[in-house]
């Protein structure tokens, strides 16, 4: 029971800032992010100019922040059309935008 509770607390309750950084790859660039950082935030931290280009080629970036607008679609570990604002960075995650 205690292990169960502990796992839950570390997973779901306040992330501790002292935890080790996670390394992800954004368009080939290696980036260290704090645990629980979203992929959308990783794009911003990597100074990626845009997450997708629109039908007419206009640059778009995360807009609604909560999985509604679909502007933040990126590829994660080869899976296309993942919503960057809904996914958390995981160790060794490979994130790429159309721009790459």
């Amino acid at each position: 029971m205690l292990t169960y509770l502990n796992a839950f607390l570390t997973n779901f309750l306040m992330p501790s800032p002292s935890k080790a950084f996670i390394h992800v790859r954004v368009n080939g660039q290696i980036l260290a992010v704090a645990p629980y950082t979203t992929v959308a935030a990783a794009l911003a931290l990597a100074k990626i100019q845009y997450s997708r280009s629109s039908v007419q080629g206009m640059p778009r970036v995360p807009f609604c922040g909560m999985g509604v607008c679909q502007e933040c679609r990126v590829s994660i570990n080869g899976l296309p059309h993942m919503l960057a604002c809904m996914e958390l960075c995981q160790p060794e995650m490979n994130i790429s935008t159309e721009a790459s």
Partner: protein
Amino acid sequence: MTAQDTDIAILGAGPAGLTAALAAAPSGQRILIIDEQALPGGQIWRQGPTTASVPARDRRLAMLAQYPNIQWASGTRMIASLKPGHLLLECPTDRAWTVYYKTLVLASGARELLLPFCGWTTPGVTGAGGLQALIKGGTPVYNQDIIIAGSGPLLLAVAHTARQHGARVRAILEQTSSAALLRFTAGLVAHPGKLLEAARFLPLLASTPYQADTHVHAVRKQNERLIVETRTRNGTTEILDCDRVAVGYGLIPTLEPALALGCHTTPQGILVGTDQQTSITGIYAAGECAGIGGVNLALATGRIAGLAASGQDITTALRQAHVARHFAQLMHRSFALGAALRIPPDGDTIFCRCEDVTIAAVASARTWRDAKLHSRCGMGACQGRLCGAAARLYWNWDQGTPRPPIGPARLGSLLLDNDAPNQHGPSCKTTVTPRADRQS
């Protein structure tokens, strides 16, 4: 893959969903909490790398962790309901699976009303609550100049979060009139808890211009800065510059799951009785999806729905909801959209972001369907979740019932790839850590 059976399914792990789960848990029935986000909390209680602890949320999560009859499916969205008591769920990194429930509590929450204006697709422009969610997720705003605009008390909370993360909030622009703002403030006296909450924004208000009667008219990018043109009700224009503009015109309920299930709704929310039961027996709705009313109403209705769904007595819970409803009414009266925002912007403004359709391309249509067929508006990835709300406001177009899948889904999910091994099924509550495992 085997289908999963549960007694009570709860869709959404925000304040309403978590409270419903906690209210239903002592009944001993099997409860499955399904949530789109990777971490529970919904929007207002969103967790992230730098967010502060929220006692109300953390207490609930700790209590829920002690119930063996609670299971979690986080990072999971409902994509269809193909028959009564059935839900088709998808975890985007994994696969789909089926859940059969006896009772269902919809706590799907709300999204922002995001209205088009000239330049709203420019990078640097986000929703208001959208910016708050992005910041909480770790998007840096340190040392950035930010303008927050739109309507409602949420703007203050967004400004507060932005400042905590090192941004300079240049201005908060509220579309409602200063008279309405005054009446709202006066009305808060009847809600001491809310007044106390508002007090924490006093330092912010002391140092940030909070301008009523004003909205963002246009934004353009110039030398890596955003040039913002604002308009007041009497037509005065002002030019501001900043790094980010966050605009949101309040909240609208998320109705797609309810519509897909066949529950009766209005644009204001899912229709429910005093026990939060929808038009379909055994399906309950709580929180913002059953009518926008703030966190207290979400907690109150979540508790009623959780008790009712598990066959417990709801009498004491009803009182709590009554006070919260009064506040909701005050909020709706005070932040009603002004006339200038109820008419579409200039014709060359992008209306549908997914398909790059302009206002001019849809304005001559007579119905939503007509507009879709002629311009492809609302037919892109978001399926009209953004422009549909604007279309209703401008032209009073009804969107009808969404067909399954209710959101973008993988083909494999729709084919119900039954032979594939179910990698997470009922043990989804561990989705937060073992995602790396799934790369194989």
